[in-house]
């Protein structure tokens, strides 16, 4: 009798242990996964997305990286995330006012650079996405972007020779689910931190501005930093900067999300980090150079009912001001980030 109970209890303990282990694997990646730390640069605020529900691991990150560069996430195989988010352009689209999508279509907006987006409370020019994990669903399913169906993507990944094993390595078993795919992409994109520009090194005391850059920095602080607030160079607000609506695109920005007329023509203030490599500029890429953007603030602002009070009287910028500002803005380029092999095509 005693023997029988002992066996039963031992079996019980084993079952329990196995179950607990199984849970660990599906919950946080299992014993074999290698955690990655998410290091907040000195002086930065806490990120909006902090990975507390999506523990960062090397395996999850690498899966996300492969997915980011994989054309099979799109309908015809030609449009991986990376087609509109190119590393050398700080993950914006080089030289394209509007990004291109499935079937030779334009999208309606300029692809934003991807860096420090864990600090963005909302993504997209209109702030429509409030949780980073679900952002990939937008380009993936938009008919003029990747034009795919979520279930089709998952089926392609399930049928692939390598993905199930990568999902297992990252999440404990071979189940290819939407949540795991989105978590992995979030691990990759959400850890793209750009904080090693000359500006950052100056702040740390390991480099110094030239006199031109220093003059530009002073001008920047007096004329630009109310919206492009340091250290992220955006205050994450939505503003109408006096850019009139394009009559062919008819994009009224934030109003589409809030349905409030007060938000008509408001778009997210973009970060100016890496600005020198992310041309063209503006939500629809209508400004081809930084000089054109500055001239817009100097002379081009068109006032309407929702134009931001900070720009409605324009921002006078002399030729000299622009020269110095350009010198400063170029110090925001993070050449380490745009060459970082962790984020390059695997």
């Amino acid at each position: 009798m005693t023997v029988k109970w002992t066996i039963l209890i031992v079996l019980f303990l084993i079952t329990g242990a196995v179950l607990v282990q199984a849970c660990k694997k599906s919950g946080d990646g299992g014993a074999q996964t290698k955690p990655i730390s998410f290091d907040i640069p000195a002086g930065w605020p806490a990120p909006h997305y902090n990975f507390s529900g999506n523990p960062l691991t090397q395996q999850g990150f690498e899966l996300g990286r492969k997915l980011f560069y994989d054309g099979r996430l799109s309908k015809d195989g030609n449009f991986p995330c990376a087609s509109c988010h190119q590393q050398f352009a700080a993950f914006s689209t080089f030289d394209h006012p509007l990004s291109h999508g499935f079937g030779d279509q334009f999208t309606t907006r300029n692809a934003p650079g991807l860096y420090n987006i864990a600090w963005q409370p909302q993504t997209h020019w209109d702030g429509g996405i409030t949780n980073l994990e679900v952002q990939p669903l937008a380009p993936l399913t938009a008919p003029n972007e990747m034009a795919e169906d979520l279930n089709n993507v998952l089926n392609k990944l399930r049928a692939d020779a390598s993905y199930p094993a990568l999902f297992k390595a990252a999440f404990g078993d071979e189940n290819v689910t939407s949540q795991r795919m989105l978590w992995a992409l979030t691990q990759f994109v959400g850890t793209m931190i750009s904080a090693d520009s000359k500006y950052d090194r100056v702040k740390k005391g390991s480099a110094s501005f030239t006199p031109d850059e220093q003059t530009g920095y002073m001008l920047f602080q007096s004329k630009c930093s109310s919206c492009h607030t340091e250290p992220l160079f955006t205050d994450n607000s939505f503003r109408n900067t006096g850019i009139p609506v394009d009559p062919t695109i008819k994009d009224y920005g934030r109003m589409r999300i809030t349905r409030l007329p007060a938000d008509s023509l408001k778009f997210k203030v973009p970060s100016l980090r890496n600005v020198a490599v992310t041309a063209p500029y503006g939500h629809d890429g209508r400004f081809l150079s930084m000089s054109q953007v500055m001239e817009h603030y100097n002379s081009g602002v068109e006032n309407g009912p929702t134009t931001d009070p900070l720009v409605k009287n324009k921002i006078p910028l002399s030729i000299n001001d622009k020269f110095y500002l350009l010198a400063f803005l170029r110090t925001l380029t993070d050449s380490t980030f745009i060459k970082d092999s962790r984020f390059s095509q695997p």
Partner: protein
Amino acid sequence: MNQKPNRLPLKLFVPVLLLCAATFTGCQKDVKNELKGSETNLTIRFTPVVQYDSVRMYFDTTTYTNRWSESFIVKNFKFYIRAIRVTNTTTNQGFEIDVTKYYLVDFRDSASALVKIGVLPGTYNRLSFILGVDSTHNVSGAQTDALDPTHGMFWTWTTGYIFAKLEGTSPSSTAAGNMFMYHVGGFKQGEDANKEIQLFFPYNTGVTVSNGKNTVIDVTADVYDWFGTPHDIKIAQKPTLMTPGAMALQVADNYSKMFTVMGVKIE
């Protein structure tokens, strides 16, 4: 876990029970429809109907005519429910299932129209649930089970769930392919389309849920109610609805009256 801890010697009972509890707690995310010991099975069986509960609705092949004399064919009909509760209004006793548990009733997938829950045995005369998704779950990122975005009930251009979806074609529609599409959602203040649905049983009866039996409550969902009372929704005027806001609130008002308890079966 088929073992029966109550047959173990008493001194071993506690540690084994703790192990069980720990195991289940650790696995909570994976456990579907958790039943506590004394709960018993209750099934809510949803059936799509038209013409004020008189006719079973079928997809694709049958043409129906709404109160505005607009003929239409239904291609999709689905909605989320949560916070299911049974109450006895005389004794004021009730039982509510885990409020974080969501069910997607998709009439294209007949299994999903059987919502199986566990409730405490008792006599109840009111069934209620909320049609919609609460604000927290709208913004909680990549989710699973009923809230998996693969179910096509998640907006991609703005973060949030579609609470209820009715799609089809109608010659009255001016949209591409004569389609009409009503996607109702919205959780922000002023746009909250969540609806608490309170249902009584026919002829002031109720339902007695007993141990060892599966009790089935038959509930119909009438497509016709989407188009009127209190708000006039005409396919000709507005064939597509794909954003939260004023019209979504109107359609939600309308469809909040689409449910009727037709009867109870004890199996």
